[in-house]
């Protein structure tokens, strides 16, 4: 990573911290504490399951909201405040600006996830008093959640490069929802014929595949996450995020900023 990208990424991270993004950790800590204490009293035998399911779901949803809400403003906010022109008047290329913003927000989300992960394991230790070997797979689920953040950050940044924040948020959120049905879309495409099949297949492969990035329920039951799935998901997210960021760069390069 070149130094200009690193500077922009660092500033994006600092700005997110200044915007009190990490305050969500307080809400998360409260949620986990209440869940850990309360669930044992209102349900039967699912204390561990709830801590893992609720903890990882909260990590995922909190992060997705942050990724979308901050990601959609990464470009438009800089334009509104006119700071973009100051940045681009220096020897910074537009693609470096996009890349720096992407790495800055992804870094923020990773730091956020790290602290939330500590909260999940602390709550797990509280309800079960000890860790078992299969708890290590929670780390794999957390890794997949980070991969989700990478995808959604890239998408939010992509929409932010040409659309208004409101529409960017709507587009990014709906792509997340549709992406969870990616498997169903592919099955649907396989059942159609002719032009419909071609269109449905194209749509099924264009939408981001979020459906394979959620193993929360699986790891909550102590089931292993296959190494092959980890490798394939990593590769998929890398190439998909690269494609989306490339699209963002193409649009941003051609955008008239005057």
């Amino acid at each position, binding site marked *: 990573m070149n130094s200009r990208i690193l500077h922009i990424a660092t500033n994006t991270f600092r700005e997110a911290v200044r915007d009190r993004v990490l305050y969500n950790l307080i809400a998360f800590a409260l949620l986990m504490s209440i869940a850990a204490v309360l669930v044992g009293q209102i349900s039967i035998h699912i204390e561990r399951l709830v801590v893992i399911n*609720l903890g990882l779901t909260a990590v995922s949803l909190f992060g997705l909201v942050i990724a979308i809400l901050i990601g959609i403003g990464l470009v438009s906010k800089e334009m509104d405040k006119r700071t973009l022109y100051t940045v681009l008047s220096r020897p910074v290329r537009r693609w470096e600006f996009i890349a720096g913003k992407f790495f800055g927000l992804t870094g923020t989300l990773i730091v956020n996830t790290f602290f939330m992960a500590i909260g999940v394991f602390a709550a797990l230790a509280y309800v079960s008093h000890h860790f078992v070997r299969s708890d290590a797979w929670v780390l794999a689920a957390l890794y997949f959640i980070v991969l989700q953040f990478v995808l959604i950050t890239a998408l939010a940044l992509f929409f932010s490069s040409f659309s208004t924040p409101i529409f960017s948020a709507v587009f990014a959120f709906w792509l997340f929802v549709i992406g*969870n049905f990616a498997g169903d879309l592919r099955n649907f495409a396989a059942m159609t014929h002719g032009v419909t099949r071609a269109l449905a297949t194209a749509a099924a492969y264009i939408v981001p595949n979020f459906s394979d990035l959620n193993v929360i329920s699986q790891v909550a039951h102590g089931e292993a996450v296959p190494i092959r799935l980890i490798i394939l998901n990593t590769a998929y997210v890398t190439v998909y995020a690269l494609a989306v960021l490339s699209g963002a760069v193409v649009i941003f390069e051609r955008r008239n900023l005057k």
Partner: protein
Amino acid sequence: MTRSQKLTAVASLILIVSMASAVVLVRTLDRSRPQARLQEVLYVSSPKLLKRLSLGYEGLLADIYWTRVVQYFGGIHAHGGGQYKLLWPLLNITTQLDPHLMPAYEFGSTFLCAKPPNGAGMPDEAIELVRHGIRNNPSDWHLYYDLAFIYYDQKDYRDSAEAFLHGSQLPDAHPFLKIMAGQMAEHGGDLATARMMWSATLQNSHDSMIRANAAAHLRAIQADADVIVLEQLAEQYRQRKGHFPENFSELISAGMLRGEPLDPMGHPYRLEPGGKVVVSDPDYLPFLDTGLPEGYVPRHVPRLPPAK
């Protein structure tokens, strides 16, 4: 105090008083419009639709539904039992969302199978629930154990024996299952079989509720056996003396009993006219079949002292 501080203090006071008043008003409204309370309702009844709507977070949704099952069952049970219309749909949704949620099968089948007022009295649904669990967790012998128990409860000893046998063939299955398969096939309805089943449950479970339930069943089995023996003794006394004893002291004087007989809770048995033996405090023996006083109405919520 500055003007700003005064304003803050007044606003804070208004906030607290208003919120407290709002709570009081809502409670008053609830009391005056009981029909407006949430009725038994299932907004989304399709497990498949719910799974789609959960956007991949079906594990958490299943936990929420399982908690809803517990609260629903507990709420009706605590108020004396009644219609458990939503119990089966809720359990179905829970286990469709998360087919590996074992407590939902273990406890859910008990909730469904138990006769009212202790449960919903829906053994067919209980069997369907556990069979769904077996389809999704074929290597877990506990589910066969639960299935065998439901069949046993329905006095279907042949299917119970079969379920025990299937379970016993799984790797890691408890050796008790093989013994029970044979015992059930030969002596399904015996008290000895019942004692074996509940003893095994007491020994193998770490859950305090299950252990308390098993201990209560074992006490009831012991009391059932005591009542049978004591009534036989009263009958033998009648054959010797020409009349039934009026109390246990007469049996003791006749050398037929060593001392005042006590039930498993330590309460004395009562000998009634006609040689009938009853327990003096049936509330503590909720699963008793024999020895119940005439006209006794069981408590809505059985007393289950913790298992030792």
